[in-house]
């Protein structure tokens, strides 16, 4: 329950650094420097921007539906932030340890769209409303392949608890399930037991390599879920000013921005937990060189805390980097392309992969 003490500061620091990082990455891709003037190498640019935002007037358009307009950013933020409540940080430290963690996460994250629709509708602005409508149609259509891709993982892991899924993917699996066995690529008939080897070999993508294409679908759909480019139609700058948050300014706009980056962090964390071994180390034990055990530490020790947080954050940040890299590479898709990608490509592919994941699970036992 107490992971809020970790995630709330993490989210704030992450948003500040990620906005800076995003500006730098976009600059490097475009042969520019990005922010350079505020602080060393522009490091304090986001802090300065944030201070400016906090000082700005809280403008409510006269014809807006005032109460809803004021409350919408917080609905979005709460929906995103509630998702962090089930995410594990350490082997010994998880938020809410509920048996249906993944289900809860997917459900609560979809609430996000309610906040977006409230914001767009309450603004009484055609751009905002168009953005909100687009957002709703996008999130609803991408919910389907997202859920299917997550179900593919769940078929393999046989659990909805994110902490259980984390334990399965490393050398600590035996400390949680006494009789847990991991086989290389999940092929139990080949009988290469990787339970004690751990490392990258027991991550879900290698425990059941069928999850590699599943991860691609998962990744594409999470981009769409978090309204990131190339699926940022709800806030398409070139068409809709900035979509559902056109009318927002100052602190409320900052909250919406924070939620957007929070969503990036959450979906990246979820991807890491489901596919890339959660807080487990990437190094395997090779014979007497116990790289995995050394970089995991005794459960409960300070070393274990350090390694777990380090691996979880490194992997998450790499995922976030990929999201940014994609944003500054691809142009925005059209609405019809978005729908055809979601319904005609990702959904059938996810269904087929679900079938293969189930087959793979049969080979794992």
């Amino acid at each position, binding site marked *: 329950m107490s992971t809020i003490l970790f995630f709330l500061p993490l989210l704030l620091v992450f948003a500040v650094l990620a906005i800076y990082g995003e500006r730098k990455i976009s600059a490097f891709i475009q042969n520019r420097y990005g922010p350079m003037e505020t602080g060393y190498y522009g490091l304090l640019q986001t802090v300065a921007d944030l201070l400016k935002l906090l000082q700005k007037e809280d403008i409510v358009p006269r014809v807006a539906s005032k109460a809803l307009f004021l409350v919408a950013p917080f609905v979005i933020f709460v929906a995103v932030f509630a998702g962090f409540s089930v995410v594990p940080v350490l082997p010994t430290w998880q938020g809410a340890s509920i048996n249906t963690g993944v289900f809860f996460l997917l459900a609560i994250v979809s609430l996000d769209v309610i906040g977006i629709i409230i914001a767009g509708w309450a603004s009484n602005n055609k751009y905002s409303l168009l953005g909100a409508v687009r957002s709703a149609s996008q999130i609803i259509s991408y919910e389907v392949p997202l859920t299917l891709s997550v179900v593919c993982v769940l078929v393999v892991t046989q659990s909805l608890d994110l902490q259980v899924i984390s334990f399965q993917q490393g050398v600590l699996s035996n400390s949680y399930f006494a009789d847990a066995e991991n086989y290389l690529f999940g092929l139990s008939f080949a009988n290469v037991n990787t339970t004690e080897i751990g490392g990258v070999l027991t991550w879900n993508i290698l425990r059941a390599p069928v999850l590699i294409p599943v991860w691609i679908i998962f990744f594409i759909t999470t981009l769409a879920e978090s309204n990131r480019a190339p699926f940022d139609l709800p806030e398409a700058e070139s068409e809709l000013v900035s979509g559902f948050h056109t009318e927002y300014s100052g602190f409320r706009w900052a909250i919406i921005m924070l939620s957007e980056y929070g969503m990036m962090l959450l979906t990246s964390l979820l991807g890491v937990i489901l596919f890339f071994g959660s807080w487990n180390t990437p190094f395997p034990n090779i014979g007497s060189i116990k790289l995995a055990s050394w970089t995991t530490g005794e459960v409960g020790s300070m070393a274990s805390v350090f390694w777990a947080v380090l691996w979880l954050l490194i992997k998450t940040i790499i995922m976030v980097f990929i999201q940014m890299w994609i944003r500054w590479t691809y142009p925005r898709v059209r609405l019809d392309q978005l729908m055809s990608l979601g319904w005609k*490509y990702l959904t059938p592919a996810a269904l087929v992969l679900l079938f293969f994941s189930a087959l793979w699970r049969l080979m794992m036992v």
Partner: protein
Amino acid sequence: MAYFKNIISAAKTLSKGLGVTFNHIKESRRSSNQVGINDPSYFSEFESGINTLQYPHESIPVPDNGRYKLHNEIDDCIVCDKCAKVCPVDCIDIEGIKATEIIGKTSDGTSKRIHAAKFDIDMAKCCFCGLCTTVCPTECLTMTKSYDFSVYDFADHIYSFATMTPLEILEKKKLLEQSEMERTVAKPLPSKPKPVIKPKLSISSKSEEIAAKPKPAKPVFKPRPMIKKKKNTDD
């Protein structure tokens, strides 16, 4: 089958695009050197890496023969007024006071005979043609490499190069008057006319004449007197 072809071509093109941008990220470890247009590497320098010129902190070297801000080395100026005459936009305003004797030498050995009471260049009018620097006989009027001289007040565009104080100007004017008086008193000597300098006598009055000439030839503002009249009646 078009369905699978779409998937394959999407995968190919998308990964290609990611490769392109990732290469840019990798190349951005290097910043391009800011070389001038004269440098042989000018066109190859900006092929990769960060190209931004962080202007106030760094700038591209300007070519030696670039035409930027004007500068007058007043110690070398003989106040010949050629620059003011040749200037197509009349941005140079010179007022000279003829000296009673040679007042010094320029660095190339030309004698200075006229005091520069006023040598103003209005850089707001300047069209950077460089004609004034070509006609300058002592090469005291040059174009510098300074090109960033924006100012807050429009009047600050006028650069004054004369160094004489008002008191000095007054003094020199008096001296000139005195010597002229002496000359008129000593007029009974017409055989010694000094006609070479005489037309140059008062440059300022001459330039004023030139400036004044076109004025009567411009009767464009016909309604002016009417407006004036109206104003007068209003008053």
